[in-house]
């Protein structure tokens, strides 16, 4: 499964922020996006996940292959850990959630309501959601926010296992995940020259 991004330009709030971004992500590979705040990591990931149409450029191989995780985990406070996971699994047409619970050490919490979890526990649950989707490409936006060292290690193991099984991962993060095999792409050089979005060009 190859994800190919060609010459992508994205905008935020009517301003071009990144342009000319190209990369390939093969099965079994991890790619870490870096760059200062506001450089456009989130916007780029949203474009790749298909939530936002890119300004220019193409993303191929993403259709129905991506499991996306952003700042908010999409958890329902009034559902238990198991129920949250089962729901997302069945949305993606699957039913097995045990491996995800195990991988993120949620077994003791499985009957707790998601609303009563701590921030780090919620985050773990949100990341466990990725494993129940069965999707090969993980697109993760700051996956380690509010995770402690042990949980980061759990997460790194999960990613490694995913890569080992032929999946791939695209992550925007600041911290070192301890994934030695991950490539790093610094987005700073792709910062768009000051110009407005194509849509506004007509007015300039």
């Amino acid at each position: 499964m190859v994800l190919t991004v060609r010459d992508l330009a994205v905008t935020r709030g009517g301003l071009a922020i990144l342009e000319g971004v190209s990369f390939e992500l093969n099965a079994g590979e991890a790619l870490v996006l870096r760059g200062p705040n506001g450089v456009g990591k989130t916007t780029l990931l949203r474009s790749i996940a298909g939530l936002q149409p890119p300004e220019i450029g193409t993303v191929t191989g993403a259709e129905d292959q991506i499991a996306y995780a952003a700042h908010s985990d999409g958890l329902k406070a009034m559902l238990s850990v198991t129920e949250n996971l089962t729901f997302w699994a069945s949305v993606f047409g699957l039913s097995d959630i045990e491996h995800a619970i195990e991988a993120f050490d949620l077994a003791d919490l499985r009957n707790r309501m998601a609303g009563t979890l701590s921030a780090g526990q919620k985050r773990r649950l949100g990341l466990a959601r990725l494993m129940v989707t069965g999707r090969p490409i993980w697109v993760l936006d700051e996956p380690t926010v509010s995770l402690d060292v042990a949980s980061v290690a759990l997460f790194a193991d999960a990613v490694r296992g995913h890569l080992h099984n032929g999946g791939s991962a695209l992550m925007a993060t600041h911290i070192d995940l301890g994934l030695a095999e991950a490539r790093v792409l610094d987005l700073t050089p792709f910062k768009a020259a000051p110009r407005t979005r194509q849509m506004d060009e007509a007015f300039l």
Partner: protein
Amino acid sequence: MSLWEYANPVKFIRTTDKVLPWVWALTGICLVTGLVWGFFFTPDDFRQGSTVKIIYIHVPSALMAINAWLMMLVASLIWIVRRHHVSALAARAAAPVGAVMTMIALATGAFWGQPMWGTWWAWDPRLTSFLILFLFYLGYMALWEAIENDDTAADLTSILCLVGSVFAVLSRYAVNFWNQGLHQGATLSLDKEENISDVFWFPLLVCIAGFVLLFIALVFLRTQTEIRARRTRALLAREGQA
């Protein structure tokens, strides 16, 4: 040289700048002539007395209230299909004008209805439809104001305009069904012009022309304003970035 070239904002402003003074002049001539003619130099109707003079503002404003919405519908479709910004902005510019026309039609209708039917307001199908139309205008304008991103706002309001049009027609049907009403039939129809005599007909035509021209002039002016406002925002955003 196709018509779509006028969808370029700069071209639009340049062209309308040239045309606008003439449109305003014609508007003034038509409106003043029509209204003065209608107010001072037409006879009273044998049944309705001097209230017939209200027709010179009631009918044109009612026509424009509907036509303004139709124009917004066409402009919204053009925006959805061809994504010309001027089109979306013209729809936005037309909405308040249409709302004012609706208000005039409702107000003059009330003033006319009071002596004729003995009531300011009746839940008559036509009156009710115009009230609903007014609500649609309000909702449409409120949605434009509420959304910050210009293109998102244009997209959403266009869809609202399309859906709203369908429901406006449905409502018209529904209120007809619901109440047969007091309002007389259409005053203007092509096949039976004799139902209104020439004495009333000619000044009315001039007034309609005046209202149409006024609408065009206002929409041109307001669209120019919207284009400039958009350009200002685009320039400011670029400065902020640089």
